């Protein structure tokens, strides 16, 4: 899933996008998403894809992980584009570009904004319990991922995984999932008790001063306006 790598990019980046606040970046995400989903012109979408790639370059994100994560939207878009390709290449490409472009938008947000910041912003609009589940999931993921990694490695080292033995893989995967779940449930009980001792009574306080806008926010807001205007009047580059 590259969740850890994406989180590391978001936390350690120093670009103007990393320094901008969550509201301005969410505004840009909405503008970009609107432009990608709303467009019905392959050329305009192609230009938007180039803009998105430039934004990724400007944010200095690592493309290895981004490209790997893009495999899913490309694959699923292609699945749905198959019928459209029978109509015309343009219709098929439109489906692929929309799926991939939207994924590029969300990945850009994640690569420049730590998860906790996103959840903190959402906490203003979503029920506290739901936000808590998001935060606990995020924390649990990083606790479990190393353990799962070493468990899978030990399964492979002991000959428990073979690419062409589906039955054996299924049996071992079931045992591995069972072990992980068992361990995670026991860990969750301990975690909850620790949180109770620290005064947790629902709703982890993660509010920020969102209204304080700086120079990076200005850049992001101007870019958002630029994208909206461009999408509305359909840029004519040549």
């Amino acid at each position, binding site marked *: 899933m590259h969740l850890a790598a994406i989180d590391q990019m978001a936390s350690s980046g120093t670009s103007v996008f990393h320094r901008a606040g969550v509201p301005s970046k969410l505004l840009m995400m909405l503008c970009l998403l609107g432009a990608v989903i709303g467009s019905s012109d392959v050329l305009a979408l192609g230009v938007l894809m180039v803009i998105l790639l430039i934004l990724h370059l400007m944010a200095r994100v690592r493309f290895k992980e981004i490209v790997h994560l893009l495999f*899913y939207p490309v694959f699923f878009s292609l699945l749905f584009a198959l019928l459209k390709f029978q109509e015309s290449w343009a219709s098929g490409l439109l489906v692929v570009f929309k799926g991939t472009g939207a994924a590029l938008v969300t990945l850009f947000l994640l690569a420049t904004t730590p998860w906790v910041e996103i959840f903190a912003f959402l906490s203003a609009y979503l029920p506290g319990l739901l936000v808590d589940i998001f935060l606990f999931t995020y924390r649990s993921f990083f606790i479990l991922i190393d353990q799962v990694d070493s468990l899978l490695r030990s399964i492979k080292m002991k000959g428990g995984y073979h690419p062409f033995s589906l039955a054996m893989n299924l049996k071992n995967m079931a045992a591995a999932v069972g072990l992980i779940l068992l361990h995670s449930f026991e860990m*969750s009980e301990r975690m909850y008790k620790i949180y109770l001792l620290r005064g947790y009574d629902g709703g982890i306080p993660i509010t920020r001063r969102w209204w304080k806008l700086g120079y990076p926010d200005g850049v992001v807001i101007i870019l958002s306006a630029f994208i909206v205007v461009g999408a509305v009047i359909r840029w004519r580059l040549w």
Partner: protein
Amino acid sequence: MSHVHLPDGVVPAIWWAAGYLISLIVVFAVLKRLNMEKVRGKIPEMAMMAAVMLITMSVPLGFIPFHMNFAALAGMLMGPGLGFVVVFVVNFILALLGHGGITVMGLNTLIIGVEALVGGAAFRLLRGKFGSVPSAIISTAVALLLSTALMILFLSSIGVVDIQSGGGILHGGYHAEDGVDGHEAEKPHRHDTEYIFGGVALAGWAAVMAVLFLGIILESVVTALVVSFFMKVRPDIINPVPDKDR
């Protein structure tokens, strides 16, 4: 399961907006209906289930290009309602990672959430009669069949797949469009792309069904094996003290 994550740009706006609305209503209703004190105690468990679902999705199963999502298992362990909330959380994180569209997150949640709702409810209904492991197989299979049928019916109703031929998901053939002067209509139709399963060639719906059934069987078996593992080491997780709030 070998479910298809709907990407962005495939479904008309009215449908994905409705999907968001309905899935949020279900999540809010589940959280509202339950006893807050008890749900609060369940949060770390739900988060762990969501994290395990996220992690197992990246575990390869060898040469078969699919992953499991364990939504039915989440319904069995957490209860149908909380299982749905877990699916919502997992889908939100996946959508941000590009695994399923962000606009169609509501629809993806409804389709996969059905697995948690039906799987969890059916398991509770059946485990008294048939025992935990057989009930897990039946519940998972029923839940996955239902969610797959829902997905195909939905995609068919909005014209993304052709339910008559199975075109759109695994269908690789094409039909020449009728030309104005009739010339194009005379072009020979290419045969449907065939998919080979152990020497048996399948096309159209047969191929779609073969792939989907294989996925359903695999996830049902793994879910049953996980339940069997729990019955050996911690049966209290599968058969907890009756709790109407779960």
